[in-house]
């Protein structure tokens, strides 16, 4: 099937009143959740995950894509109007966006950011369609290749570990452990189930993800006081042609930066947004305007973030490997719907695979239509007292966790995961590695054991394919790259100390 035929099939499968309605609802829910302080795309997607199980697989994935987009724009709204970013990537948008709001141009900043997001998403989409046509080649991958790819994806974890590698790897190892609980499909043995029939089926990804992202955020927020009051003047949401002309270059550059960063392990959205901002400042004829309300400072980072959101899907759709926590959530949503993400999806369920791709385009359009006229509605969510909001959300989450398998055990899992997530965050441990390893662990173990069961020497088995050798080469290069960066930093620190001693 050609890419064009695939796109047509995708549009056919999602262009139903039911799916369009779910997408509109998804966008609205995503924006409302994204506006809430502290709720970035992973938390928003995790919170709203149970809702999507009430609909068909294509509708559910289309709705998740809309929630994802909506929550990203929700973060942009608060970054621009309040300088309270929903996620790290929005900090860059808020630098000039908030300055524009202070000058009464918040509406314009929101409008140009929505247009930039649309352009970035749309161009990245073309790249994704092109990449998807290669997915069929991935069908030729053996389990040795998949093991190597999954191991490479684990390098992602190292990319997500933040400041301390030890503290980043602890949640990653815990995620791997949780993935081993349940019935071992190779030997039939029960692992760490304590004889419980509920645990024999394994720990539900969905319940764990809802717990570590959704509940952790709620518990963290309940521990604080919310004193954010919005009273700024948004101003008109119209954009002049002059502004669009001034922003076209930024949109193009932002798209390239975002698309490229989205393909990297860990999909570092903050790095993409700040690189785009720094790039805009560097190429600008008026760098002195940056930080004081430069429109390019808003468009560049936001376009990059949205292009990244699309190219993020490429490793998931072509290789079946999630490269970020939000993709891990989407991965688990596909699994729950009985769909295996990756090249097989294009072969066995082309309507769903292409439906997902086209739903990303449509979600972009819906967001553009909905975002601006209703901006005051989204912002008004901030006026709802969180003390009222959170109990209601907890009620919905309890219902959602129960609905996954009609079992109270999943509610318990969600709470245990939430409590664990809360404790880990109090110790400065990132949660994204846990979500990724939870999903990647079983894939890694299954293929590792298949390789070992051949009874050949390890090197002979695991280095028998060029793809695997390529993956290991990339891993070595990544480690060398990281090691080089650390060495450079140490040298810089040593040099700095030497200079300080000389001065004193």
């Amino acid at each position, binding site marked *: 099937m050609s890419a064009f035929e695939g796109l047509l099939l995708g549009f056919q499968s999602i262009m139903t009143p039911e799916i369009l309605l779910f997408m509109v609802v998804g966008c609205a829910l995503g924006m409302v959740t994204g506006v809430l302080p502290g709720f970035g795309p992973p938390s928003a997607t995790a919170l709203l995950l149970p809702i999507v199980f009430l609909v068909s697989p294509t509708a559910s994935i289309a709705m998740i894509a809309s929630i994802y987009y909506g929550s990203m724009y929700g973060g942009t709204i608060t970054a621009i109007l309040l300088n309270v970013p929903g996620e790290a990537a929005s900090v860059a948008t808020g630098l000039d966006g908030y300055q524009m709001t202070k000058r009464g141009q918040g509406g314009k900043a929101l409008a140009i950011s929505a247009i930039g997001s649309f352009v970035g998403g749309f161009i990245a989409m073309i790249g994704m369609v092109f990449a998807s046509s290669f997915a069929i080649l991935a069908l030729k991958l053996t389990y040795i290749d998949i093991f190597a790819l999954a191991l490479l994806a684990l390098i992602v974890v190292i990319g997500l570990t933040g*400041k301390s590698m030890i503290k980043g790897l602890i949640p990653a190892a815990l995620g791997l452990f949780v993935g081993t609980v349940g019935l071992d499909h190779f030997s039939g043995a029960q692992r760490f189930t304590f004889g419980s029939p509920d645990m024999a089926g394994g720990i539900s990804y969905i319940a764990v993800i809802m717990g570590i992202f959704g509940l952790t955020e709620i518990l963290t927020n*309940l521990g604080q006081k919310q004193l954010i009051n919005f009273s700024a003047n948004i101003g008109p949401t119209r954009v002049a042609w002059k502004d669009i002309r001034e922003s076209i270059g930024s949109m193009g550059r932002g798209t390239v930066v975002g698309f490229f960063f989205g393909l990297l392990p860990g999909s570092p959205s903050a790095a993409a947004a700040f690189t785009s901002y720094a790039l805009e400042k560097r190429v600008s004829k008026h760098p002195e305007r940056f930080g004081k309300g430069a429109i390019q400072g808003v468009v560049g980072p936001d376009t990059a973030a949205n292009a990244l959101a699309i190219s993020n899907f490429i490793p998931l759709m072509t290789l079946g490997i999630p490269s970020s926590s939000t993709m891990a959530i989407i991965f688990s949503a596909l699994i729950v719907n009985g769909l295996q993400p990756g090249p097989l999806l294009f072969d066995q369920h082309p309507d769903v695979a292409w439906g997902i791709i086209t739903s990303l385009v449509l979600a972009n359009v819906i967001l553009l239509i909905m975002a601006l006229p209703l901006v005051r509605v989204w912002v008004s969510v901030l006026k709802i007292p969180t003390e009222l909001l959170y109990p*209601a959300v907890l009620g919905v989450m309890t219902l959602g966790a129960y609905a996954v398998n009609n079992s109270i055990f999943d509610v318990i899992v969600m709470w245990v995961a939430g409590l664990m997530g809360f404790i880990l965050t109090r110790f400065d441990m990132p949660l994204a590695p846990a979500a990724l390893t939870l999903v990647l662990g079983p894939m890694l173990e299954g293929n590792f054991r298949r390789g070992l069961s051949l009874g050949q020497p390890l090197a002979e088995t695991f280095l028998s394919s060029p793809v695997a050798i390529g993956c290991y080469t990339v891993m070595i290069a990544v480690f060398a790259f990281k090691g080089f960066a650390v060495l450079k930093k140490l040298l810089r620190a040593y040099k700095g100390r030497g200079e300080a001693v000389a001065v004193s």
Partner: protein
Amino acid sequence: MTAKIEAAVPEAVETGQASENDGSSSRRIMAERIAAALLSAFAALVLFASINLGLFKGTQPGPGLFPLVVSSLLLLLGILWFVFLPGLHGRHAAAPPDSVSPAQTGISEQPAELVAHESAVFGTELVEAVGEAGGIAEIEEAVAEQEPGDLPPIDREGSLRIAFILFWSLIPILLMERVGFLLSMIPYVSVMIIVIARRKWWKVVLITAVAVLLVQVGTSFIGLALPDPFRIISTIRFW
């Protein structure tokens, strides 16, 4: 206004916070030591359980092999955390007090203007660092370096709220399958709102009851059967 805020940040940092930080820092190190010890003990238990599961069955890998690898990694990390804890904590404590994480900006006890100011400081420093950085690894490093470690401390009231929520969430866990979704969720949600938001109880109970009822009727219409041992919903639907 902005100038006032700018002046307030260092002032607030200088007065009182340094001595408070010392106390909370040693408490924090103690808590982390306990957590690292517990994690190591847990990992050791899993390690022994993995060995008991069987590492190999003949020439084939057994069910305990992969958990053994994972638990060994966890044990190693637990020990490293315990050993290198003062170093890890020292780096976090050294983070500039006026740099606020994106997550923190939304949940701190500060007014919006101050939050905005701090977010701008954080962002500007980051842009400078990214601008100076050469490669992708350095850019990622610059972003990671600027992300501060510690979340704002939870006060007594916050701790009580969290403890109450954790305790009260046993209600649906214990009661949902016994008395049904409706009769467990009404007290669960309404008591949470009454305790946390301190609203008039009769209004809260009434609104919650109607909302929960609507949710259950709605879910039953789309084919999602929630526990209803007393057949309340089927009776309502019949009428």
